[in-house]
């Protein structure tokens, strides 16, 4: 038997009593604990739930919420929902990409930031909305981007 690398996976599996129908919840909790879903963790989850790794992999890649690569310390989520789009979220995203020198879905080389887009966070009155970690930055404009980024180290 392969060496178990991630104690986080073991804890999550215990919480869901190795129930294979809880796969999505297991992936959520594992990602929350480790920061992303490393390859070895997917294998350990598959073994724990008694399902093929291929199924774990297909679910982990099908849903937008999961990341199979390491992410930066601060996750930037740019809302691209319709209300934010109508108010110019694409320009905010373009400015973030320019300042950070990365594209949507990438990390900065120092692993400080990860830039991702989400479809809607339901805070449409404050659009365009950018969420960094748990902080909501509403009514964003391209001009405000560098100011907001300064708050994170």
């Amino acid at each position, binding site marked *: 038997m392969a060496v178990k690398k991630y104690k986080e996976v073991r804890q999550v599996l215990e919480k869901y009593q190795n129930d294979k129908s809880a796969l999505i919840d297991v992936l959520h909790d594992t990602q929350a604990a480790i920061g992303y879903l490393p390859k070895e963790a997917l294998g350990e989850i598959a073994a724990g739930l008694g399902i093929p790794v291929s199924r774990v992999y297909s679910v982990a890649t*099908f*849903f937008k919420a999961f990341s199979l690569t390491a992410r930066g310390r601060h996750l930037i989520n740019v809302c691209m929902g*319709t209300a934010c789009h*109508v108010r110019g979220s694409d320009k905010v995203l373009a400015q973030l990409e320019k300042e950070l020198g990365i594209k949507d879905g990438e990390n900065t080389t120092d692993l400080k930031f990860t830039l991702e887009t989400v479809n*809607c966070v*339901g805070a449409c009155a404050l659009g365009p909305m950018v969420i960094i970690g748990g902080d909501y930055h509403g009514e964003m404009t391209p001009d405000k981007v560098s100011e907001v980024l300064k708050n994170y180290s």
Partner: protein
Amino acid sequence: MAKLKSPGELEALRNAIVKKRDPDKPCITICNGTGCQAYGAKRIVAAFQEELKKQNMEGKVDIRASGCHGFCERGTVMVIKPKDIFYQRVRVKDIPEITSETIGKGNIIERMLYTDRSTNQKINCEYDVPFYKHQKRLVFGNNGLIDPTSIEDYIAVGGYVALTKALKMAPEKIIDEVKKSGLRGRGGAGFPTGNKWESTRNAHGDVKYVICNADEGDPGAFMDRSLVEGNPHSVLEGMIIGAYAIGSHEGYVYIRNEYPLAVKHIKTAIEQAEAYGLLGENILGSGFSFSIKIKRGGGAFVCGESTALMASLEGKVGEPRAKYIHTSEQGLWGKPSNLNNVETWANVPLIINNGADWYSKIGTKNSKGTKIFALVGNINNTGLVEVPMGTTLRKIVFDIGGGIPKGRKFKAVQTGGPSGGMIPESLLDLPVDFDELMKVGSMMGSGGMIVMDEKTCMVDMARYYTTFLEGESCGKCLPCREGLRQMRYILDGITEGRGKEDDIQLLAELSATLVDASLCQLGASAPNPVMSSIKHFRDEYEAHIKDKKCPAGVCKFGDAKG
């Protein structure tokens, strides 16, 4: 908390809770929905508690972190009861003054009041604000009154009365009542709820499931989030009644992980209901047992499709299947399953409490009750709006929504999200219900209503929705997977100045194929934004294609000519 063993014990508990509360004692309800929390509502609650201590007024006033009040544009909003004074755009720095002046001396602070846009007058009370005055908040009304993390608050306003009433009725009688009420599914398709319940009840097998779809995937819509966040027990009560009527003992809430507060509140609500014996074994001594589990989604729009949602609940990839066998016969794990949306479930207690006759008097001939819309985009009063079915778009956009900001002109309203269509100014007097929206090439959807002004390019919007859907297509069936990609290529071309004469014809042909041949409704309804915008705004497409111009000034053509 002891388990309640009979309806009588629930009544006694309610009386005890109400008796303890003084209706004349000032109570500040502060909106703590996700929107207002983004404005800093949590800090405001803390600041109040600190300030009351500082000014020696502890105990003189109750502070309640309530669910979403709906008027997100003016957040953080608060209402000071019993006089219902409505303060808006409240910030932490305002708290000392509100505490000393309004709570302490009863004086109203003018600058915190809402100013009517048309008359320029200050308005004191919540119910006089035009945004609220023109609404009918049957489902959503309690959101602003209760603390969603307190089951006692819900019980105090009459919560779980409908459940006790339902448990005394025969299941068939409940189904009859829901059928007679005319309630149709609020998730999008508008299928008659009572009929769905009946088919699941009559389906073969002992194990049946009841599922709540709280995976609100429509970008720009957040009424389900606000209901689950702000009044989770109303959803649970509806589900328990439905389960009893259908003969189900296991239920699931499938909820978006992007809504952390909603996940937290529904979890708390389930634990509280279990502790009081309103969920679990032998509910209120009736002999009926029912439990609910929460499952989080992974962020896939296609999981709004019932079969895809159920696959996801089983821990599989969220791909839909053909529905020649309905999920009411074979759904979750091959068992009869009844899936309804959050808002549908929250309507159920109303129907049981007030009766089908009362309910069916609200709305239009074939669409009964109220509907909550998320009014967003280029609109003055962004927020959640609950109106009777049949209310005109004009009333929603202008009387309630306060019209378009910056003095700009209204261009269109988009209903039904990425599956819906764009409705032009000429149809503003359209009464909004399931059938009228279908007639103009749109749909109700879950209730997103995106307002667009003259600076919005309709071709760009069609491209936006098509790009969204292309990304969300699960890829299982070819028409949707490849068709959407081709449509997006064409729309990219038009918006980048590479449009060709026959592009519109080609889009129409691809659309027809998607409608006819897609496996599920994601693909079949995907052409709606494109086709409705061509129908109503053909001149904009032609300006892009022939003149290489974007009339709204959104699309930048650069040097790409011809």
